[in-house]
């Protein structure tokens, strides 16, 4: 697993997430511009591209959810055949992102992402 900008609260927040069994990596992303703020990802995961797509999907979802009247997005989860992407938008404008195996405990990752979001807020 590679680590960039691991220092301070950001590193601790990512540590808590990547310790969950089945999590392949975690990162912090600027929601506005889709740029990586910090990351702890397994080899082979393209952090910058993932950050851009996660930010873009978050923006689309936020607009759709606000239009639907369900308020701002607190957590979202993309399920796929061989894994999952889980995202919590923090109030600071940073997205806390995890990439996980398909059999990961989603509830546990969600909790750690929410803790991570509090830590970076």
């Amino acid at each position, binding site marked *: 697993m590679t680590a960039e900008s691991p220092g301070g609260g950001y590193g601790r927040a990512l540590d808590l997430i990547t310790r969950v069994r089945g999590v392949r990596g975690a990162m912090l992303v600027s929601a506005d511009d889709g740029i990586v703020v910090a990351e702890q990802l397994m080899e082979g995961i393209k952090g910058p591209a993932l950050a851009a797509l996660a930010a873009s999907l978050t923006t689309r979802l936020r607009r759709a959810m606000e239009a639907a*009247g369900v308020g701002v997005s607190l957590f979202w989860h*993309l*399920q*796929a055949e061989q894994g999952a992407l889980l995202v919590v938008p923090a109030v600071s404008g940073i997205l806390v992102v995890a990439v996980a195996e398909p059999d990961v405990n989603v509830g546990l990752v969600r909790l750690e992402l929410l803790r991570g979001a509090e830590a970076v807020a």
Partner: protein
Amino acid sequence: MADDVKALSSQLAQDPDSLVFLRLGEALRHKGQLDAAYRVAVTGLERHPHLADAHDLYARILADKHDYERAFDEWDMALRIAPAHVGALKGLAFLYFKIGDVQQAAAHLEAAQQAAPDDPGVAQALALARGGATEVERAADPAAEAEPATVQESLAPAAQPLEEARVFAGLEGAEEGLLLLDGSGRVLGGALKDSAGQDVTDAVAAYLAGVSHEAARTAKLLGLGDWSGLAAEGKLGHVHLTSPSADALLLVVRDRAVPMGRLAIIAQRAAAAARRWLEEQG
């Protein structure tokens, strides 16, 4: 009608879990075969206990049998499952008129009108409510048979046929919490309303255009294979997106009282209905 019953019975026999029991029960009810309709509704309810339309059908049959107390319970249950269920609101309005509570009846009709502002039956019943209780009772009576055509049009529980052409016919939230789009964001079926009852279908559809493509790109980038769903938790409600076919996107929206896991089950059922409908459209 006999052919309808035969065809629907055959469909139900082939797929006992399908929602065709709603149409079969209604067809039998219209034919006056209340005992047969009753059996179909009860069996359907056993398989789909959380389906508001199933409770609504059962309540109409009970009302036809003059079992108003149990009909009340069933319509009440339908409303607990789907608070804006127009059939249940109109059914309860009818029952309140029966017992002389015009105020409650009018309140339920007003709620029905909020949920279905274009329903002429609700508008007529509400107008009649302001004119006289007797007429309204006739308008809403699911068992009435001899009323004039104009009043019959306004009766709610009795004359609310399930439209076979609708994508989500018979599904909970079909007109306020389910939406089917094509790849470009064009609405194929269903509708969305916000908590104030405002139609937000087009606005949400516009924002969702391209989401399917972007979800697929993200899953591919991460080597995750095909995406199967996207669940999101909002401050006031939850949404679930899935792709029932390569070029379609299904959105399910519910308030926060509906857990995410249950939302996924609702989405699976709606996706199955959408796939069937898309196949029928060719």
